[in-house]
């Protein structure tokens, strides 16, 4: 490992805004974002998620929040367990990470749902437990079955349905992970922008792949990219409310080169100050949808320092 690889190149920032349409209708923001700067310069983890928001997914805001928590925890764990062998790490990540993410989210959702049924006295507002034809009394509600059939689990998971996009950036590699709509953009030093994980075809009209569908781990798009001293200066991760706000794909891709230029010229602190306002303006004049945007960027080309993690 050379000195370049030992240097700590990455920083992170992010923001989310409630969509203009959601504001008008009184609905909550169903996007989530979470990041963590890992200790001992092991890397930066960033995740965004977009709860479905349709009536069949009434707790999708919670599903999105759980999704980013699971993603950050699992990607951090990956850095703890990884050795120096990048090939082995790549194989392990490709083989296991999609299943682990989906399973981890499902376990968290089922635990949350169980907790909700036990604690919330307003049982009528909650979906019925499998096998009950009427709203159960609280003491019955507490008797949440330990063993659920696939169909029962599926019904519960759908209520929390969400997408998930995540990035792990270390000094030696980065990982891109995507399940469902949204965008991960890679911005090169010359300002060129690409979307390495291509969009799935055959989806239309707000239809998305989701954590909540059966065997959804098979739908995960994944990239493990070793770094050889030519790491891109900026990775952007956004829910689809962002790209849907632009009149053209070119207009959306321009956010990549624009953010890179702004980070270099004005520094991350200035960009962070304006980020919420920009996203709100984008939703207001664009899709009207919630937007969550996270950026992992190289610090050495920027004019300010000191950003940390948060949610």
């Amino acid at each position: 490992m050379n000195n370049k690889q030992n240097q700590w190149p990455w920083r992170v920032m992010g923001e989310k805004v409630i969509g203009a349409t959601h504001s008008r209708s009184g609905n909550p923001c169903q996007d989530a974002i979470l990041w963590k700067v890992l200790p001992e310069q092991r890397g930066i983890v960033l995740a965004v998620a977009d709860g479905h928001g349709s009536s069949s997914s009434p707790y999708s805001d919670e599903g999105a929040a759980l999704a980013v928590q699971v993603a950050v925890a699992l990607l951090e764990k990956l850095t703890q367990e990884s050795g120096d062998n990048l090939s082995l790490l790549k194989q392990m990540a490709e083989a296991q990470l999609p299943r682990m993410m989906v399973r981890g989210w499902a376990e968290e959702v089922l635990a949350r749902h169980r907790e909700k049924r036990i604690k919330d006295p307003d049982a009528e507002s909650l979906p019925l437990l499998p096998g009950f034809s009427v709203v159960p009394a609280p003491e019955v509600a507490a008797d949440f079955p330990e063993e659920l059939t696939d169909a029962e689990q599926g019904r519960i998971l759908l209520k929390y349905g969400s997408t998930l996009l995540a990035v792990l950036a270390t000094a030696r590699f980065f990982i891109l992970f995507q399940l469902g709509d949204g965008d991960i953009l890679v911005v090169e030093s010359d300002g060129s922008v690409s979307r390495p994980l291509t969009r799935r075809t055959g989806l239309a009209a707000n239809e998305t792949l989701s954590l909540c569908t059966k065997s959804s781990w098979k739908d995960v798009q994944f990239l493990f990219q070793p770094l050889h001293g030519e790491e891109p200066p900026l990775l952007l991760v956004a829910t689809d409310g962002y790209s849907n706000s632009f009149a053209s794909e070119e207009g959306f891709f321009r956010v990549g080169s624009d953010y890179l230029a702004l980070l270099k010229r004005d520094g991350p602190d200035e960009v962070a100050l304006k980020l919420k306002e920009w996203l709100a303006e984008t939703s207001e004049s664009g899709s009207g949808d919630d937007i969550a945007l996270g950026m992992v960027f190289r610090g050495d080309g920027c004019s300010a320092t000191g950003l940390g993690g948060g949610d």
Partner: protein
Amino acid sequence: MDTSLRRPGGELASRPLHFIWITDCSGSMIANGKIQALNDAIRESVPLMRNVAQDNPNAQVLIRVLKFSTGAHWHIDEPVPIEQFEWTDLAAAGLTDLGKALSLVAEQMMVSAMHQRALPPVLVLVSDGQPTDNYLNGLQELMDLPWGKKAVRIGIAIGTDANETVLEKFIGNPEIPVLRANNPDVLTRYIKWASTVVLKSASSPGSRAQVGMINGGNVEIPMLPTVPTTALDVW
């Protein structure tokens, strides 16, 4: 020199929402003033559609009109923003070539014709009779396309001669009934409902997981309009 930080990215735009009237202009629509009642009902609904669009600036409502009789033709072929849309009366004569109409709609639901960021389109089929061509071929072409399958499809039957089974197949969702209008007042109510309440719902849908999406997909079909029980049936 302007040193303020400009919003990153290119031009912003609301999301297109295609609304297509698919209208039966066969000869039987002349009887008892059906075609004129349809013209009047849609004309009356236009200002209401503008109001709905105004309430949701994040959707750009685009209108087209397709007519079918002997063959099928676009009455208004280019999508017209609702703010500029003016209704032009339809005339009736000829057969009921619904299959050809659905084929024409299918052409416009192809991925190459739809913007990826478009909202679920709304297709409203109004008919008073039996198809005179093989409508199942046209319907299959439509339903083979992701945008056709996920479109919000509403069927309005005019009079007792309208074939409800055909409209049910077009709708493709047992939870959405065929709306039967047996007089001009009820027709007007259904047309207004489709062009306002359904439009509003389609303009701000949530997302939905891929599995099991049918008519309208993620669009909640609102409660149907109430119709007066005392109105006389004239069709």
